[in-house]
């Protein structure tokens, strides 16, 4: 595989983590404009763990997920009763606050004669764990996609349990879900925290892929893109978000046919697609049809 293809495929994998976290909230009936911030929390946490504290990548990823879940729960707790645009705006406000906190975050230590650590708007350089251990781009690609596969399989299996049905019920009609005996607020908090952990895992891998992160990486544009990916791909199955990311990055950036007009083409396609399929390409109906055909 050439370097360019590896790069695109790695990006597709990394973005799929955030898109899947947006998907989790969408099937629970909420729009989040804030998943990019938890992606950022994961990136910073994992970077600090490996580059500053000298921990192995595996531990860094775990710490990132824990931080992502904790911060998401902290943000989610006061916003649990909000719905629709109000929930979306609360997540946006929280995400922008976190981004500004990244800009104010200065904490640097000397590691092997070199100063590393978050330096406010200057960003955080030298997250080189992967690079220093001589992991080839292809190896990192395998790591990203391996972890993504695990995540997708776990979510897919969970969706077939009572818990998965409860999340869908919450998304369909929270009042009805409540009368069916589902603890709506607790379930929503769990989904928010899980989505936060998932976005943070993507961020942790992103930080190690890039070796350099800055607060601007985690602005609202990333958030709205991931929301779009999840919705284009479809809300019927957990592979939907991956399809959404692949469509944008693979088809448009990968082919480079529409250079200079990419956003005009992509934007128009998305708007038209959503008229035809408001819940995405692989929506519930298509997934049901695919399942019952056998």
């Amino acid at each position, binding site marked *: 595989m050439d370097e360019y293809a590896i790069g695109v495929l790695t990006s597709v994998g990394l973005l799929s983590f955030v898109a899947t976290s947006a998907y989790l909230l*969408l099937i629970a009936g909420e*729009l989040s404009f804030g998943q990019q911030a938890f992606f950022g929390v994961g990136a910073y946490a994992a970077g600090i763990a490996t580059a500053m504290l000298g921990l192995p990548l595996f531990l860094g990823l775990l710490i990132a997920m824990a931080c992502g879940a904790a911060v998401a729960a902290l943000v989610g707790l*006061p*916003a649990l*009763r*909000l*719905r*629709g*645009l*109000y929930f*979306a*705006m*609360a997540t946006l*406000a*929280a995400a*922008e*606050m976190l981004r*500004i*906190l990244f*800009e*104010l975050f200065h904490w640097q230590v000397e590691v092997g004669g070199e100063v590393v650590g978050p330096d406010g708007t200057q960003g955080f350089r030298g997250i080189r764990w992967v690079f220093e251990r001589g992991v080839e781009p292809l190896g990192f690609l395998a790591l990203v996609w391996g972890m993504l596969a695990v995540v997708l399989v776990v979510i897919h299996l969970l969706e077939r349990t009572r818990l998965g049905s409860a999340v869908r019920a919450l998304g369909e009609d929270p009042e009805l879900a409540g009368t069916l005996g589902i603890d709506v607020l607790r379930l929503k908090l769990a989904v928010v925290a899980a989505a936060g952990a998932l976005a943070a895992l993507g961020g942790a891998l992103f930080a190690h892929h890039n070796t350099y992160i800055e607060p601007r990486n985690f602005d*609202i544009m990333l958030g*709205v893109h991931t*929301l*779009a990916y999840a*919705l*284009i791909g479809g809300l019927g199955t957990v592979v939907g978000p991956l399809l959404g990311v692949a469509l944008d990055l693979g088809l448009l950036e990968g082919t480079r046919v529409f250079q*200079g*007009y*990419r*956003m*005009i083409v*992509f*934007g*128009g*396609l*998305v*708007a*038209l697609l*959503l*008229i035809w399929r*408001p*819940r995405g390409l692989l929506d519930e109906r298509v997934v049901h049809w695919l399942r019952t055909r056998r």
Partner: protein
Amino acid sequence: MAPVVDFLQNCLDGLSAGAAYALLAVGFTLIFGVLRRANLSYGPAIMLGAYAATWLFLQTGAGLLVLFAVAVLATVLAGTYVERLCFAPHRKGAAAAAMVASFAIWMQLEELATLLLPRHLYAFPALYEGGPLTFGPFFVRVESLLILLAAVAVCVAGWKVLYATRFGIAVRAVIDDPRAAELSGIDVGAVSLRIFAVASAIGGATGFLIVASHEQVTPMLGMWSTLKGMLAMMLGGLGSLPGAIAGGLALGLIEAHSQWYFGPQFRDFIAYLLLFVLLAARPPWMNTRSAY
């Protein structure tokens, strides 16, 4: 004495900035009131209008009145396009789809604008050539007074239209209950389209006033307008004209004071923090029921 002077001057600066936010919030709140949807493309449509005017100015050196007309016209065209593509097809349900579609068109409008004028910064003719008005130790820019005046005028005119015309009755009926309005013979689709056009005209005028007051246009205008407008709309409570004006002025005041006392990075932080706390605490003027 000096702290008091600073405080009052900050208030003046805050109200000056807030007037522009208030105008942006009026457009958002009109659309939100009728469609119960947030139009993310509102800012980018305004940006396209301002870019069209700037382009014409660079080509022909046209006067301010012509540029104003072009900005309004281009924004109305862009707004109508957004309504047809993103909101008319999703009138029933699918609020998430409408919001994401309006984001997709945001990308489109922004790329269109930057294809028209690719540089990062363009000069725009000044709204007013003279210096600021000074009285005692205080000063106010004439441009800011004009924007404030425009905000009040739009609010009063909007009030008149809503409460004294047939169109206004139809709009209020749709706001109250779209299905009941439809059953009593109101063409809900036509009302939505017209409100979109009116809001876009206000947006185009706002964009013109903002760039002529700053004497420059940058590609940040789209995102800036959407964020500030939504923030001001939320602070004042959704779907209310006086609320939009109050929210815009409040946002300006909060930003001016927090910038002065805590520095520029905390300016935005405090505005977002306040919004978050208000959303979580749900004061009576923010009726936080399920709504997009």
